[in-house]
């Protein structure tokens, strides 16, 4: 019987999504299982892909990425470029409110954009093109001069260089509009711990959500391991439970692969000195397809260039693969010794760095592994305090110029990000491949692979329609009417 329900859900899911109809309120708890408990609830500061995904529960963005391209979110329409791609007029939908009931206006939109220009923000790439953002990012107090509030619902954004793709940055979760008290305008609100260890938190439905109140009363988010996810799905199947598992591996039947949008790069640091050429050659010869297949659990894609295919308008011409060295352990003492810096929280990154360690060893380079938590990892990457760093960059923007700026920002900082955006802006697709190769050389980083998650819903859960940028509108989920509740 449950198998039949699942099959029916599979048929209904695309139909519901196509209809664009908001599900009716049914009253229940939506459980969302993640690889790790969310730790960062501020969209402007979140860097972990899981955190960024989970933030969609609370927050709404000015624009969203629909299958046909950018679509309005909180904005009434997708802004058209003005002044040769240097200005955009953002108009909010009428009568918007935050989850705490306070009105959401143009000032809130301007403040949310302005705070992305504050020094130390991990998503400064969004505000970077805005006129005056340079000075603010360098420490000047105040907001960038390029953000002007025209009325209660209108904001004029002026850029310092032409960037027609700038609206794509407004469809990313860090660009979500946040109230001064930290409330968002997403389908759910609040984060109350529901377990003593804090591994699960619960959010209540947002009655003021622009898309309408979600079907569930609450949404609970927390960490589940693969076995736990399988058990909970089994239980949800028998009990018509509402569970959505977001993990790299498929937790059960009906799993949907989200686009691989977290790109991992091996960045070479300035400390390498004379060893840089040998290390660059060794890392460049790694079989990225094999790396992605053997060491990445979730949906993955080897990176032939700086950006994954999900961000590119069209597939790039295939590159000739470098010959792989003969495998097998070496007996001679390696001549070069380096350290590989990796984020300690990600098992995927740790597995990959162990592969890099072996491949470097096969090429005569001895490497130790340094793990660092996010609080230490990102400052070290920003300061160039590493030999080789394995840097995962969640690519949130759906346009190559913005996404490349995001990569450059994460690897080398503001100046590199500005160069990347300016060089790729309005570039024809035929010139994109060479430009991305040149940019990878400029950033001195080896693109390795992109990875993503899989979404496995319980059979009773309907409406799961991941967007092209890998995000999920949790407010779209609804309950199959045949369920017992």
């Amino acid at each position: 019987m449950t198998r039949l329900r699942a099959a029916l859900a599979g048929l209904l899911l695309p139909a519901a999504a196509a209809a664009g109809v908001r599900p009716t309120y049914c009253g229940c708890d939506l459980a969302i299982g993640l690889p790790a408990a969310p730790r960062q609830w501020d969209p402007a500061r979140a860097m972990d892909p899981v955190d960024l995904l989970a933030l969609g529960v609370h927050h709404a963005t000015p624009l969203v990425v629909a299958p046909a391209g950018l679509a309005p979110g909180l904005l009434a329409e997708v802004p058209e470029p003005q002044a040769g791609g240097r200005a955009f007029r953002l108009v909010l939908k009428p009568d918007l409110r935050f989850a705490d009931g306070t009105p959401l206006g143009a000032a809130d939109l301007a403040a949310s954009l302005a705070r992305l220009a504050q020094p130390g923000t991990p998503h400064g790439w969004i505000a970077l093109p805005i006129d005056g953002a340079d000075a603010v990012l360098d420490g000047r107090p105040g907001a960038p001069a390029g953000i002007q509030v025209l009325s209660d619902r209108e904001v004029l954004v002026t850029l310092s260089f032409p960037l027609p793709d700038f609206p794509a940055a407004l469809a990313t979760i860090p660009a979500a509009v946040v109230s001064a008290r930290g409330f968002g305008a997403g389908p759910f609100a609040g984060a109350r711990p529901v377990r003593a260890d804090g591994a699960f938190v619960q959010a209540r439905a947002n009655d003021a959500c622009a898309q309408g109140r979600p079907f569930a009363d609450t949404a609970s988010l927390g960490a589940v391991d693969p076995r736990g996810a399988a058990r909970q799905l089994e239980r949800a199947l028998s009990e018509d439970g509402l569970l959505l598992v977001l993990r790299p591996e498929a937790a059960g039947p009906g799993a949907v692969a989200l686009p691989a949008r977290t790109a991992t790069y091996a960045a070479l640091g300035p400390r390498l000195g004379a060893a840089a050429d040998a290390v660059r050659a060794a890392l460049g010869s790694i079989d990225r397809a094999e790396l992605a297949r053997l060491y990445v659990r979730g949906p993955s894609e080897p990176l032939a260039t700086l950006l994954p295919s999900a961000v590119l308008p069209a597939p790039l011409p295939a590159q000739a693969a470098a010959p792989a060295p003969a495998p097998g352990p070496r007996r001679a003492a390696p001549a070069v010794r380096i350290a590989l810096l990796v984020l300690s929280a990600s098992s995927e990154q740790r597995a990959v760095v162990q592969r890099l360690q072996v491949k470097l060893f096969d090429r005569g380079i001895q490497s130790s592994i340094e793990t660092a938590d996010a609080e230490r990892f990102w400052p070290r990457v920003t300061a160039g305090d590493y030999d080789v760093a394995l840097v995962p960059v969640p690519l949130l923007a759906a346009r190559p110029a913005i996404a490349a700026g995001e990569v450059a920002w994460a690897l080398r900082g503001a100046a590199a990000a500005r160069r990347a955006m300016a060089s790729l802006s309005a570039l024809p697709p035929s010139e994109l491949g060479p430009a991305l190769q040149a940019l990878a050389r400029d950033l001195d980083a080896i693109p390795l692979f992109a990875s993503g998650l899989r979404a496995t819903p319980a059979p009773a859960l309907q409406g799961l329609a991941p967007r092209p940028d890998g995000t999920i509108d949790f407010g779209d989920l609804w309950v199959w009417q045949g369920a017992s509740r």
Partner: protein
Amino acid sequence: MTLRARLGLAFALFAAVPLAAALWPVLGALSQSLDSEQAARLDTAVHAVEGELRRLAGTAGESVRDLARSAEAEAVSRDRAAGALAPADVAGRAGEWMRARGLDVLALAEPDGRVLSSGHLPGRAGDVDADLAELFARSPAGQAVPRVVARAGPSGVEPVLALVAWDDVRGAEPPLRVAGGVALGPELADRLASLTDSAIGLRAADGTPLADASPAVDPSTALRVWRRVRLVLGAGPAGTATRTLDLPPEAPVARILVGTVSDGLARAELTVLLAFLATLAGATAAAAAAGAALARRVTRPVEALRAAAARVAAGDLEARVDAPATGEVAELVEAFNGMTADLARSRARLAAAERVAAWREVARRLAHEIKNPLTPIAMSIETLRDPAAQARQDFPAILGEATQAIGEEVRRLKRILDEFSRFARLPAPELAPVPPDELVQAVLALFQAPGVELVREVEPRLPLVRADRDQMLQVLLNLVRNAVDAMPSGGTLRVGARRDDGEVAFTVSDTGPGIPPGDLHRVFEPYFTTKEGGTGLGLAIAQRIVEEHGGRIEVESAPGRGARFSVRLPAT
């Protein structure tokens, strides 16, 4: 080296050499005994190590066999065959199983060595591991063998020695194998060292150290020093014995060095050695002291003779040897004392004879010098007698001439007596710093002679000399006067001063006829003169003054080429 020292050394060697010669057999016998004890201990330790290795090999083989037959391994094999297991999902399994079963090495691989999952080197998954392939090809399933495998460690990929076994996963299709084992690393070395109370060293086949451990003992400083001394002497550390175990014996990939260490045995050996060395030192010191005392008794009169002979050589003829002696040495002492007494008496007689001869010479010279004026005086008186008796008119004129002649001779007598008196009572010089150029200038200012060309030759910036200015002026004036006297027809007189090897040399030279070679060595003798009316005391006085200034006076001359006198005074 003195005779006494040689005798003392000889006595010390006489005592030390036999004792030292006895040391080596004693130590040899002791070492042999200790070595036997050590060998027995080493056998026990080696057996314990071999037993532990067998136990570990059995444990590793059993663990791998159990894992290969476990439900979880079969599930992986089944899911993999069904395509339900992604490679990335398999990659982490070996690590989980390895940690759960307490193994240090574990890999899940295909028969050709392609690694699906590795616990000890996770990044190897996907590669064909040549070592693993060789293990599958050469070793039977279920039997743990020593292998050097690459393992991920804190510093990177490092070789580690391990006992590794493999087995087929039951029912796997396609075939799947599990290879795992335990590392023979620092932890095992520590355990073996603790178990056997021995030093354990793990080495790769090429000798590369893999791990070292020693039992927790802290030998005293003396023992550590003694072991180091033995190592330096090539005798091996005291109380230690070492044996090497090849792993495996037929084709070693690694070696285990087992070394037993016994502080008790080493301490016994060191105690015996120290006691022996103390005895040796005491006996040698006693022998050396006895030899020195005996030598002192024998060499005392000889030492006294040597000292007395040195005093005699220095002119002390009162030196006598007063040391007790016997036999030939006593006769030698008596002969020496007699000889010095004879020498003293001879010197006294010689001095008396010299004094008499000197007085005679003085009397002769005085008589000679006084007699010469007396004759004209007598003749003048005789000359006056007749004119006076005859009441000659020219008597007053004659009287005047006679009294003038007598007066001149009397003045000459007085001058002679003054010279003798000055020679006899020359005052001691009053030394003070005097500039040499000023002395030369003063001499030349006091002297003028028509027909004689004066040449002044003084070097600039000469050091001062310590001299009695008046006496040195007298010396130089005397030399200048002699030079002028030697050039009655005129010539060139050169007076100069120059620096010469820490001294200042004053020179006075003339262009007169020179001094005959036969007279050259006598010019400074008192009363020697070739001048009419000279007393022969001028140069003698000059020599005495110069010598009392600590200097010396020299003369060079050749017939027809003039004479050159040099006065050398020490510079300040």
